[in-house]
């Protein structure tokens, strides 16, 4: 029991230290993005576009699958509960608020933790093991400016975009159930969906997606930069990137929801 507690404590300490490192990395990101360009160090925007395609566009199918099927499942579950009280047309209301404010940012963030976070950690980690990062530094190219800024910027742009798609995919899944199986008319679904939806729900969802994108990028890149050893170290960093990202996304989601709605 004591050993387990000690192991838990070590894991917590490791996560805490990593979060501090990630904050430092974010400071470096802000410096190379906002300050350094005034000193002649350009941001590689063409690389941002390339990474946005690699990280974001290629993730559209998996974001569609996850959000769509969760939308279908959620609609059936909610309708089952509402049927007890009568007004099953309010399923649309739950779908709208649920996806815009909560589900799509969370689901897309978690999907991207697995898709982009792991990929970033493995890519940067492999570069570190192969001395590519040292080669960059020796060539007077800062790895944070050269590698991390374009990738983090791409993730922070693409996660909100994918979250927007995720909203549409998820709500469309619910819409198919409501109109196909529950005899709710498309207009009624649409009206009920918009009734409780506030502008605040939309911007909160957007804010969450930006923060989750930031977490995915920082954790993936940070784990890659901290790789030690060879292939085993890269594997460990990749696993840590996914686990830490999911933990931090869920904790951040909880904090944001409590802070913004209570």
């Amino acid at each position, binding site marked *: 029991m004591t050993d387990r507690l000690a192991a838990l404590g070590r894991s917590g300490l490791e996560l805490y230290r990593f979060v501090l490192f990630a904050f430092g990395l974010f400071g470096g990101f802000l410096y190379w993005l906002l300050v350094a360009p005034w000193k002649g160090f350009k941001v590689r925007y063409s690389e941002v576009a390339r990474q946005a395609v690699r990280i974001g566009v290629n993730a559209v199918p998996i974001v569609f699958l996850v959000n769509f099927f969760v939308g279908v499942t959620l609609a059936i579950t909610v309708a089952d509960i509402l049927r007890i009280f009568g007004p099953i047309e309010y399923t649309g209301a739950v779908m709208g608020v649920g996806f815009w404010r909560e589900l799509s940012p969370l689901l897309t963030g978690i999907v991207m933790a697995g898709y982009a976070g792991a990929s970033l950690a493995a890519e940067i980690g*492999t570069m570190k093991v192969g*001395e*590519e990062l040292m*080669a960059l*530094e*020796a*060539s*007077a190219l800062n790895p944070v400016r050269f590698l991390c800024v374009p990738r983090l910027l791409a993730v922070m742009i693409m996660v909100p975009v994918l979250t927007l798609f995720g909203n549409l995919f998820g709500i469309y899944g619910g819409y198919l159930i409501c109109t196909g199986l529950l005899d709710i008319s498309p207009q009624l679904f649409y009206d009920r969906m918009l009734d409780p939806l506030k502008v605040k729900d939309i911007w909160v969802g957007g804010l969450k997606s930006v923060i989750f994108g930031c977490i995915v990028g920082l954790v993936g890149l940070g784990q890659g930069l901290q790789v030690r050893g060879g292939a085993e170290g890269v594997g460990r960093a990749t696993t840590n990137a996914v686990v830490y990202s999911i933990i931090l996304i869920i904790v951040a989601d909880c904090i944001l929801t409590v802070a913004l709605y209570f």
Partner: protein
Amino acid sequence: MADASNPPPNPLPGNPGEDGRDGQFQKGDVIIRCTDIFKSYDGRPILKGVSIDVRKGETLVVMGGSGHGKSTLLRLMIGAELPDSGTIELFGQDITKLKEEDTYAIKRRFGVLFQSGALYNSMTVGENISLPLREHTDLDENIIDIIVKLKLELVGLRDFEHLVPAQLSGGMKKRVGLARAIALDPEIIFYDEPGAGLDPVMLAVIDELITGLGEKLGVASIVVTHEMHSAFRIADRMVLMHGGHILAEGTPDEIKKSDDPVLQQFIQGKAEGPIPLRLSSRDFAEDLLGG
């Protein structure tokens, strides 16, 4: 060396300006000066007060057994790590005291050939070589393409620019790494085991390139190597690192004639001699017990 009729050269002449190019160095001037360098990892000392000078145009070969600090010294010289104490002056500027951005002007003046080649795997061979040119110069793309072809020709890899590193053998990667290291026509080139993985003919080609760069262009070369035949072929001066110190230093002839048993065991590659191949039983027991 400097002409004797002129005043003796300032050992570290000039005060490089912001572009790092203002300091004028003549062949024979000291362009790297490491003074009393200490470095340890996790409390284990690797370098214990190493001091060394490198002059413009000379080829310095650094020899030593594994774990005796030669690669660490190289990493410190290129600014990849900081020493625990001591100073490292490149072109008259102490890089241990500079902010990272201030080291860039200095780093543009040297090239590094890493042991594995350290090519950027997501880029083609041509992109690897052109990267420093694109990032640090305003050259036209056509000019950059020509320079890339010239550098590849120098290392015997004509028409390889469209391949990716995964399509190359270990030796080819190393040659591409060398082409990248010389892309900006540096004044210093650091080589980490340049001969490892190369066939004898290509090793001779690389050796000729190293000596040619020194003789014709005044490039200083710092070569970390175990290849004794190659080392004696290229060196103007050699040092042997042992136990975190510089054990011996001199010209190839002086090194050959030295009667130091450690040096002789190393350069002759003998299994028997004063260099311990195994830990003593006491050290081994301490290691096992974490002492």
